């Protein structure tokens, strides 16, 4: 420890960037402790996508055409990138409900009366949600492997690309929790935050290339699907995982899905973090 940090009075630190990171970690730690005390929340978060994997694989598999085939095995390999992406976006509801709960219980008031970094309460929450998303994704990937999902089933791939795909998924999930943060600050009850955090995700995740081949859609719907931020990540993951069903399209995000995915996610983070932190400053329970 340097003499300079030791000299700060009463065991306090004053570097604003350091303080901001530290405050965020304190809040993240708090939310992770909560997670271990409410394990059923984590459990339900995992069960839902696992159920989707099993249902979609066995119910839709064999009836939907991907490329030129309706082979159930091909659909399975096609599907997983879509389910993974949908799963990470569903973390939105968790962060929305968590923040709405903190508002309702008066914790946000307590935090706002403390000399802490303004964005730390929200950053801490989204970071903790990211950890939960990573756990969910890991379990889901294992289940996917068990039901028969394989990387490199259509095109060759490598470990770096596969990890890159999961990286994009986590980035998308993190971006969406900032949307959740804004929703959580904008509604009156945690219940409203849960439904408000999830209903709009159905059109977003279904009007996309996640579960069906979007090139088969009516033109206007196809355009929406191809420019949907969510589709870019799904397309990028299929490419990186070497899975079938990569959409052939003139749309820029479909041609450069990795870049499009990163750009969409960063844009969402910048816009929604700004809005959420501004809202937090004036938040009233």
């Amino acid at each position, binding site marked *: 420890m340097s003499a300079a940090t030791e000299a700060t009075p*009463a*065991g*306090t*630190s*004053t570097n604003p960037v350091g*303080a901001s990171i*530290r*405050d965020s970690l*304190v*809040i993240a*730690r*708090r939310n992770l*402790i*909560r997670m271990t*005390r*409410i394990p059923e929340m984590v459990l339900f978060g995992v069960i839902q996508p696992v159920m989707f994997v099993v249902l979609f694989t066995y119910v839709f598999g064999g009836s939907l055409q991907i490329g030129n085939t309706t082979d159930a095995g091909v659909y399975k390999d096609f599907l997983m990138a879509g389910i993974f992406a949908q799963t990470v976006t569903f973390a939105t509801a968790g962060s929305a409900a968590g923040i709405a709960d903190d508002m309702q*219980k*008066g*914790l946000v*008031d*307590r*935090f*706002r*009366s*403390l*000399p*802490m970094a303004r964005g*730390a309460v929200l950053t801490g929450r989204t970071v903790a949600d990211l950890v939960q998303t990573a756990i969910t994704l890991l379990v889901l990937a294992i289940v996917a492997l068990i039901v028969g999902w394989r990387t490199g089933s259509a095109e060759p791939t490598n470990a770096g690309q596969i990890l890159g795909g999961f990286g994009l998924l986590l980035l998308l999930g993190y971006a969406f929790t900032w949307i959740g943060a804004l929703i959580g600050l904008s509604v009156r009850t945690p219940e409203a935050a849960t439904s408000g955090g999830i209903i709009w995700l159905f059109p977003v995740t279904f009007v996309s290339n996640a579960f069906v081949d979007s090139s088969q859609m009516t033109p206007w719907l196809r355009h929406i699907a191809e420019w949907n931020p969510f589709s870019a990540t799904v397309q990028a993951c299929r490419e990186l995982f070497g899975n079938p069903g990569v959409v052939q399209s003139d749309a820029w995000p479909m041609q450069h899905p990795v870049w499009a995915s990163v750009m969409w996610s960063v844009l969402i983070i910048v816009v929604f973090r700004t809005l959420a932190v501004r809202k937090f400053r*004036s938040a*009233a*329970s």
Partner: protein
Amino acid sequence: MPGAIYAEGLVKTFGDVRALDGVDLDVPEGTVLGLLGPNGAGKTTAVRCLTTLLRPDSGKAVVAGIDVLKQPNDVRRSIGLSGQFAAVDEYLTGRENLQMVGQLYQMRSKAAKARAVELLEQFHLTDAADRPTKTYSGGMRRRLDLAAALVVSPPVMFMDEPTTGLDPRNRQELWEVIKQLVSGGTTLLLTTQYLEEADHLAHDIAVVDHGRVIARGTSDQLKARTGGERVEVVVHERDHMGTAAEVLAGFGKGSTTVEEHTRKLTVPVTGGAKLLAEVIRELDVRGIEIDDIGLRRPTLDDVFLSLTGHVAETATEGDEQDQTADAGRTDKKEAAK
């Protein structure tokens, strides 16, 4: 020189509602101001403005010598907030809650840990320190909440209805804690709906109604404004109320108040105990049986009524009193066991 808490012309409107309509406050260092008023009077809004949670539309606020509007973060270092709108995380243990708050006051993790141990001891929560606060009783949670506000021993404290919803025993306990705290020199602004609480804890009382301070003074000064003593009689039979009223009118210095359902008559008087004896004699002569009689000094309830023209929280106040009475009986039963 302005006091530790100073506000001038605070105005805050929510849509059409003027929650604060020009509030002036001045709390000298080391004293307690009780902000007394019914629900919706603007007490909480005032506290939220002074604790940086809410930005007033206009006006000036200085806390611990720091301008609240210009340097909110410096104010946050010097204040503690507890009560209705501050809270603890129910899934964290008492210890974890206090450590977290310490760290967010920018204490080092080690210092925050040590401070948590001290506070848990001071607030008699050591035994429950490692249990999630979900399992705490209401009183314990309030104590922890108060402890959280005291992590950095701030020179200025705000407590928003600290005892609302507590049973009488817990309320007494919390009062003791607050008294100790204040004897250590902390400046405190306390809001309350309980007139008794303000009477008990505050050096000065500001009565708030419709976003304005409508009266200010010590408890005794406020009581003096309502006038002097009065005689209260509860007659045994409803039929006797008319006669009793005639008797009281003969002694009274003002009009007699009659409450039919409680068979209670009240009249302002001068003359003290001697007069009371005469009233009793006269009632006896007229053959009026009485259940209760007494000489009453005005309470803050009376003050409130005379200042605002309406009773403070008629419905809830009545409920609270009933609960208090019930809880008192339960306590006795338990003591008897």
